[in-house]
């Protein structure tokens, strides 16, 4: 073990401080006042953020800091170190997690005000930050998997935070179990990695990848497919996407932090982290492209017909994540990561804005009952608008740069793929504008009495909105493409981790593509404005919706849930009861018991000899003696 220097201590403190916050909850419990608990919990994360900044400054230009603590598991040739790797990729993720995390902690002080589980909520959030940091800081797959499952645990805890509601706890179970299915495949991937590489450490594996690949081309393909299957679970890609919309049962800050900004991007992080392996597996990349594209389009279409403000955002998240995978599949790792960052900013902002609306409307989430809120919630409205412009990719906000980067990279691969990517962008524009206009513009659709009670959120909730709005607006400047004379700082910074991204197209074509998509998005903006503000259309009520086949199909989310329930959940339960009834009790138990029964039967037969007549016994005895004597004499 290397000697403990300051880097060791700092990088250990980064995840441990939030963990301290979690354990602190057991010490002070509900004894402290809300403001103290909130300040304390946020303080840990902010400290952690500052330490991440320190580490950011310490990263060598083309390398990584490896900090080794102890062996987590060890047996023979099998070793799993408890060690961190802090490189360009992980340090940005650390700053993202702790930075957005701190903002959402602060926001939650206002949002969770008066809740019974106030301090428990912050304990869970702190625990989540710890696991997320573990995930991004680990230097090997197993420790990363620890964080990976840990964030799943926190997601479970926070979705089911209001545990008295059975639907919420069902959603929590669903999230954990669906994630577990992905995790199972990921575990298979890890076992395979150990079988063929003999180690779990990223840097060792990256060094050996080429030679293992040369030995057997199928192996890398299988490993990467399994890892990707794990990623589909965590990042809510088809076919494992169904948990994320249900996960909106959790408090809104949770949706912002876990189900938009950080945890769901873990799958993208995993693939970028393993880009050396994925680069060697062309077939896997094809599959990722297909899955990513399918997810982004399907989720985009579903989002068109959702009427719950958080469900729209949830499907939007699924769709955006699909877009990122789409980019990963074509090898545009830096572009995907760039979009991950900008998406974290504006989607967190959207959720927090939505939270502010829900808070202001005292729990109402149906956009059909909102409308015209722009006057009543001025600051929420402005920040929400910034986020909307960012996500529909209008220049010069951050979403424009990142989405354009993805589309440009995709075009270099194939114009057909570009078309689908752009289509996804149009869907995004439509449902986001629909959401925005129905909530903030048009006429108020709620009863007068309710309308009077609507209030702007307190400043502790607005402050994080301002910061995130600033990041959403300016985040794109991290990676201004060369077409605008930028230096592509992010991509260059990531060079040591992500080596290949050579899909650039010439500037002329890029201008044309940008122009096309921007014009189309603007067209959609006007169309939706015309529809929802000028004509004052309101989405159909559920009863009307049921008469419209396609719309209903979208509203019911392509019937994924019903399908899974009928094909997997119910049969599994039925199958287990079947086994219990027909194998366990009817065969296994019966066979065992039949041995006992057999001996009872035989002894019953033998028992008939013992009829209790002494004279019979005597007779039998004499007969026996005679018999024995005869045998002796004859022999």
């Amino acid at each position: 073990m290397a000697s403990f220097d300051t880097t060791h201590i700092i990088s250990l403190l980064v995840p441990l401080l939030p963990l301290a916050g979690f354990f602190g909850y057991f010490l002070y419990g509900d004894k402290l006042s809300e403001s103290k608990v909130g300040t304390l919990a946020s303080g840990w994360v902010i400290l952690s953020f500052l330490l991440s900044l320190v580490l950011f400054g310490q990263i060598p230009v083309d390398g990584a800091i490896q900090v080794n603590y102890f062996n987590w598991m060890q047996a023979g040739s099998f070793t799993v170190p408890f060690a961190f790797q802090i490189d360009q990729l992980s340090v940005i993720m650390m700053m993202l997690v702790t930075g957005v995390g701190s903002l959402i902690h602060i926001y939650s002080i206002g949002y969770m005000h008066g809740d019974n589980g106030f301090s428990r909520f912050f304990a869970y959030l702190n625990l989540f930050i710890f696991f997320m940091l573990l995930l991004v800081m680990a230097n090997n797959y197993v420790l990363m998997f620890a964080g990976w499952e840990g964030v799943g645990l926190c997601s479970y805890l926070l979705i089911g935070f209001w545990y008295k509601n059975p639907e919420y706890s069902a959603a929590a179970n669903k999230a954990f179990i669906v994630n577990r299915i992905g995790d199972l495949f990921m575990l298979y991937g890890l076992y395979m990695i150990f079988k063929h590489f003999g180690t779990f450490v990223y840097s060792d594996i990256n060094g050996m990848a080429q030679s293992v690949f040369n030995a057997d081309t199928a192996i890398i393909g299988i490993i990467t497919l399994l890892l990707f299957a794990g990623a589909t679970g965590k990042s809510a890609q088809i076919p494992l996407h169904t948990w994320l919309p249900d996960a909106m049962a959790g408090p809104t800050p949770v949706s912002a932090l876990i189900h938009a900004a950080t945890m769901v991007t873990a799958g993208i992080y995993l693939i970028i982290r393993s880009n050396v392996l994925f680069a060697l597996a062309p077939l896997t990349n094809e599959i990722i492209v297909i899955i990513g594209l399918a997810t982004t389009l399907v989720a985009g279409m579903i989002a068109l017909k959702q009427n719950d403000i958080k469900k729209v955002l949830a499907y939007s998240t699924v769709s955006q994540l699909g877009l990122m995978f789409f980019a990963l599949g074509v090898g545009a790792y830096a572009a995907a990561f760039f979009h991950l960052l900008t998406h974290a900013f504006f989607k967190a902002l959207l959720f927090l804005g939505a939270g502010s609306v829900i808070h202001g409307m005292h729990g109402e989430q149906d956009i059909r009952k909102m409308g015209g809120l722009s006057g009543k919630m001025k600051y929420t409205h402005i920040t929400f608008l910034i986020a909307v412009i960012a996500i529909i990719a209008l220049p010069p906000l951050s979403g424009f740069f990142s989405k354009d980067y993805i589309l440009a990279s995709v075009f270099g691969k194939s114009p057909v793929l570009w078309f689908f990517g752009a289509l996804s962008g149009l869907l995004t524009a439509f449902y986001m504008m629909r959401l925005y206009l129905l909530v903030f513009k048009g006429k108020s659709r709620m009863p007068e009495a309710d309308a009077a009670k609507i209030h702007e959120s307190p400043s502790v909730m607005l402050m994080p909105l301002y910061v995130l709005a600033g990041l959403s607006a300016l985040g794109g400047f991290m990676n201004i493409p060369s077409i605008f004379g930028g230096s592509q700082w992010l991509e260059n910074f990531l060079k040591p981790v992500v080596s290949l991204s050579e899909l650039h197209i010439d500037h002329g074509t890029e201008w044309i593509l940008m122009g096309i998509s921007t014009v189309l998005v603007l067209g959609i903006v006007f169309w939706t404005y015309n529809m929802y503000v000028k004509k004052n259309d309101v989405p159909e009520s559920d009863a009307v919706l049921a008469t419209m086949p396609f719309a209903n199909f979208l509203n019911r989310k392509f019937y994924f849930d019903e399908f899974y329930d009928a094909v997997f959940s119910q049969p599994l339960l039925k199958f287990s009861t079947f086994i219990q009834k027909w194998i366990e009790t009817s065969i296994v138990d019966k066979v065992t018991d039949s041995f006992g029964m057999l001996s009872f039967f035989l002894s019953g037969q033998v028992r008939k000899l013992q009829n209790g007549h002494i004279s019979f016994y005597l007779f039998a005895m004499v007969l026996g003696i005679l018999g024995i004597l005869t045998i002796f004499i004859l022999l």
Partner: protein
Amino acid sequence: MGVLLTLLIPFISAILILLAGKNTSQKLAVMSTAASVVVTGILTAMYFKDGAVIAGVDWPWVSSMGIRFHLEADGVSLLLLLISNVVALISIYVSLGDNYKNVHQYYALILMMQAFMNGVFVAQDLILYYIFWELVLIPAYFLLLGWGRHDKIRSVTLKFFLYTFLGSLLMLVGIIWLGSYNGTPDFSLNAIYGLSLTTNTQIAVFAAFMIAYAIKTPFFPFHSWMADTYTAAPAPVTILFSGVMSKMALYSIFRFVLPVVPDAIATYGPFVMQLAAFSVLYASLMALAQKDIKRMFAYVSMAHVGLIVAALMINNIEGVHGALMFMAVHAIVTSGLFFTAQILFRMKGTHDIYSFGGIRQYMPVFAGLYMVVLFASIGLPLTNGFIGEFMILTALLKANTLAMVLASISIVIGAVYMLLTYRKVMLGQDNTSGNFSDLQHNDKFLFLSIAFVIIFMGIYSTWITQLCDNTVLNIFQP
């Protein structure tokens, strides 16, 4: 002498408790088990310090038949002693929360069982080992018969006794065969290790031993005594059964099967491995179908031990280390699970999952601790459950892909049944009435300790591997 102490302390305390009567038995039992844990801890510390086998006693016993009273503890024995004594302590602590009839007899029998189980783990002579092995059955039988809770407790007890006894007899045949293989009878472990057996003999011995261990462990299809016995026995006894008694069989596979019949394992090991792996899947499905929470936990335990058997059959260093690790893990986790079932039982006098609901709001501490145990049971990282499971499955993939796949599906199914149960029992609105005060004093202390050990082992696990390393290396690199 230290090794002998681990037998004598519980044995003598058992007699003292019987003599002293009902009033002091709880105190004596706690003191005795605590002393056992301390003694075992000291022995372990000595082992870590010197790295030498802890010599016990080696007295001639039945010289004409080559039987010696030989006790000794190496690393693996020490691990099992730790498991046995810690679980016995847990068991006694769980017992404190309930009122048992004839309380002095009850505690005396538990301590007897502990003493004999310790004997199994340190005996260096196969006949001595066999005697301890069977002696364990006697207190187990009376504990089940006298304090069990079942409509047909007699037939449950009889089934348990006869079934496990039948298996043991096969093992006795195997032992006598091994001991007299060279003409002059010698049952000492070293002599057995020194034998060079023909392949056919190995297969016969392997079959005789493995059937005994398959029943005791138990794994599919030899498990039909298990669910009833585990459900009927009082919770502390169930903890002993699943925490330690099943380990007797697993330990014996490690000690008497792997080194003695390598050829047979090379031929039939994969079959047993796949059977055990199938047993994991089967038990998980069974757990999913249960409506009685204790019965469900019984099947959970069966799933876990099946995984250990599969790992042992890999017969290499990584697999065996994984198995030993998971033995320690399973002992703690299963104690926690059955303790949970017992706490629920104390509330409403039933184990029926559907008669609970909404307990979370009244008992936050219990809810949190139950959750720690639950997640350890389904192998969440940073709990000890993950360590064992991960080590085993990694090794299993290298050895046998089919077995790995069969065994690993329970990762998902486990999450399903555990979370569904937790939701039904703990979450939701209150639809129950009963005694809902949160954990107090002993219970709280015990449950907190279990949770602490679960997380501690989940983060710092290598000490177990180090403890066993020399013994394991001796087997694989003689």
